[in-house]
């Protein structure tokens, strides 16, 4: 390993140590290619990463098992920003914060609105398939990736899609790579669709000590003709809070606010920068250092029953994107070193949720808990296709995780 690092150093490729594992920091695609070719020749296990904020839930245990960490954080240039076309192409190491500021100059917003955008790279967000509270209006990130450039384990550089808002030329391999959690390729560059920045923002909140007191209002919101930017039900501060974030312009925005106000009867209505701060607060709900994190997915029609059940469980923090059928759970004590009893409880939680018609996906939990909870696909042929794709793009298993896409090692 030392010899490899010395070779890379001679080639001018920066490297440092992170928890006893070498971390290489290439500055351009050629350097990424050089690192991967050498690693491929030496059969080294490589862990692609951005700033490393999701290492604990993308590939639990793999950070320690990797021979080499490869961060794209120094590939941090905006390649092409065309406000007139509403598109942005940037290298994977750009932070979301950097890109958000850039597109704002053209009157646009970026999705997803992730927590801590200063600490999240574009490549990391794409690889992890992240979404934020704005998904309610904008949809999942994978719908807005126009094209990707990637490096395969042997150093081959390949592209799919392009920089255009509409394009069906060739297979949509960027859909395969987005959310593949570093198991297929190193993401190098992405082109994204941008969204017009709205003039007016309003954030409405109703708080109740009992979930039940919010569920009817929640159901009534769905019957409105309003299209919220975010629609979240959470209990992170103790009581249950139902948030509706709206964006728009002038009279139309006022009409939306009035309709939501009528149904929600909010205790707080925040506007302008106060609304922006409240929205940032929703983004930040994701950040819970030391807590285990999982995601529960269900259909919208099952959401009220799911929330009632979760409210009866002890010590769970709930952050539900109610319009989408998605709940993010924070679980105290399930971070790095849960006890056997706690892991057993996780297993019971998963079983109970399955009975409720919901699917539990572990995220930020220790490797042992992850293996306990690793979702399995009921349909074996689909899983076989996934493994076949992994095998074909990464025949030596350099990037392969034992926990993804869904079968235990």
């Amino acid at each position: 390993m030392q010899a490899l690092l010395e070779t890379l150093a001679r080639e001018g490729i920066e490297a440092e140590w992170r928890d006893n594992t070498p971390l290489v920091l290439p500055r351009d695609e050629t350097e990424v290619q050089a690192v991967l070719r050498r690693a491929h020749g030496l059969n080294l296990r490589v862990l692609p990463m951005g700033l490393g904020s999701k290492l604990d839930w993308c590939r639990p245990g793999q950070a320690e098992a990797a021979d080499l960490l490869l961060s794209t954080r120094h590939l941090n240039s905006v390649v092409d920003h065309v406000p007139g076309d509403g598109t942005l192409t940037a290298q994977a190491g750009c932070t979301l914060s950097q890109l958000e500021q850039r597109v704002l100059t053209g009157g646009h917003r970026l999705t997803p609105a992730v927590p801590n955008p200063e600490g999240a790279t574009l490549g990391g967000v794409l690889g992890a398939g992240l979404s934020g509270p704005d998904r309610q209006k904008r949809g999942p990130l994978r719908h807005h990736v126009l094209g990707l450039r990637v490096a395969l384990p042997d150093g081959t550089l390949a592209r799919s899609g392009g920089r255009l808002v509409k394009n069906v030329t060739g297979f949509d391999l960027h859909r395969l790579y987005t959310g593949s959690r570093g198991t297929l390729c190193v993401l190098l560059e992405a082109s994204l669709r941008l969204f017009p920045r709205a003039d007016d923002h309003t954030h409405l909140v109703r708080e109740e000590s009992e979930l039940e007191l919010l569920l009817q209002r929640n159901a009534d919101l769905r019957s409105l003709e309003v299209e919220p930017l975010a629609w979240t039900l959470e209990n992170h501060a103790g009581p249950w809070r139902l948030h509706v974030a709206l964006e728009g312009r002038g009279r139309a925005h006022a009409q939306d606010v009035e309709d939501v106000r009528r149904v929600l009867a909010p205790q707080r209505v925040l506007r302008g920068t106060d609304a922006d701060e409240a929205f940032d607060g929703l983004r930040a709900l994701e950040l819970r250092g030391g807590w285990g994190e999982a995601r529960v997915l269900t259909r919208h029609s099952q959401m009220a029953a799911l929330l009632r059940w979760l409210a009866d469980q002890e010590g769970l923090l709930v952050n539900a994107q109610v319009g989408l059928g998605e709940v993010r759970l924070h679980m105290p004590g399930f971070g790095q070193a849960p006890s056997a009893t706690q892991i057993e409880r996780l297993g019971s939680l998963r079983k109970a949720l399955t009975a409720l018609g919901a699917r539990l996906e572990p995220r930020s939990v220790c490797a042992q808990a992850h293996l306990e909870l690793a979702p399995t696909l009921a349909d074996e042929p689909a899983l076989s296709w996934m493994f076949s794709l992994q095998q074909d793009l990464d025949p030596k298993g350099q990037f392969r995780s034992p926990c993804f896409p869904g079968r235990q090692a």
Partner: protein
Amino acid sequence: MQARVVSQLRAIVGSAGIVGDPAALLAYESDGLTLKRQRPELVLLPKNTDETARCMALLHEHGIPLVPRGAGTGLSGGATPVPHGVLVGTARMRDVLELNVEDRFARVQAGVVNVDLTRCCDGEGLFYAPDPSSQMACTIGGNVAENSGGPHCFKYGSTTRHILGLVIVTATGQVLHLDEPEVDPLGFDLVGLFVGCEGMFGVATEITVQLTPSPPVTETLLAIFKALDPCCDAVTDLIAARLEPSAIEILDKLTIQAVEASVFAAGYPQEAEAVLLLEIEGREAAVEDTVERILPILKAHGLIEVRRARDASERRQLWAGRKGAFGAMGRIAPDLYVADVVVPRTRLREIVRYATDVCTERELKISNVFHAGDGNLHPNISYDRRDEEEVRRVLEAGDLIMEACLEHGGSLSGEHGVGLEKQAMMDRLFTPDDLSVMARVRHCLDPDERLNPGKMIPLRACLEVRPAGSRSSG
């Protein structure tokens, strides 16, 4: 094909599900790309997933290539049969299997016609958003294979954004159930990968689609311009102003005249050089606000007049004209070459102008009707395929237009797919490594390349671009 195999296939699909009569097979020789024709050995029309799987397993056993086909409305040759191959059509898979209003999705068989799905939701306050011009005939399965678009994809996105789950049958006859109607895929996004695969990964037999709430208010505007160039520029400025109608379509003079002379006559002004068809959807105040912001931009580009659809009937008529435009072109010449290219929306005017010049120089009749808001151009060249010299000029013009798009940062297809038509141009857009990765992904599901062989990925010296050592002869 061996009589024994035909007999076994007949036993699976029944007599109504098999077409072998040479005269009847004529109807399947091509899709909408009539320049490319090949008579299939046989057409199979299974009724469900099970029959499809059994047929495909049998074809696999005998090494017989096959081409999936929906309604055959595709325009890139994606459903053109291959020599000694079988067509597997979805024409008898017409059932809506589930309509879930509360969770806003529908599960349908692949042969359900696009417009029938929306009709099925009528009254529930929901609709299926992708609306290709051929939506009166094209199928959801075909839309999935080609990742079809349509005018309203400017707001709602192409087919891929609306597909929640799939049941597919692979080349070997294996059945894959991909995802439930939940928010995210478990593992890789195989559904996203499959959509737009042009029939090269498998045959989709059942499809779960997202349904969209119907907009409370719809405003349809017909903006009349004295020239095509400023009409294009107006669209570029609408996009730059970050306005969000749901559809932005341009029709030029020749198209208008063809439409007005046809059964699709929509009341477009025949003296206009170009019209812009705009639709704005949403709540009343938002629609009014958007219209107020659109009008000054149109006026700045020489707008002659703007007409508003007064009711749903007028709106339908305006859209019938737009969607019937390709059919109406039959009045100009017996055949129509529908180009499908995309450019950045900042480059609309120059590419439209270039396409016109290229055709004029070659004495070809060009008409333009296109999804301007997405930068998705359809320069349409009318011709007579019996005139070989004219066919040569049509293909030459098509290639030049595609090359110009690529030079301006554009792409080969916005919604029709690559198929046979654009296969030879793929290496102008992608590197050998790009194409090789596509071929490798394809090989994961179809290592023998029996599914829609010879499409999309270009051939080089009889060898499809593929990873070294994977196969040595073609």
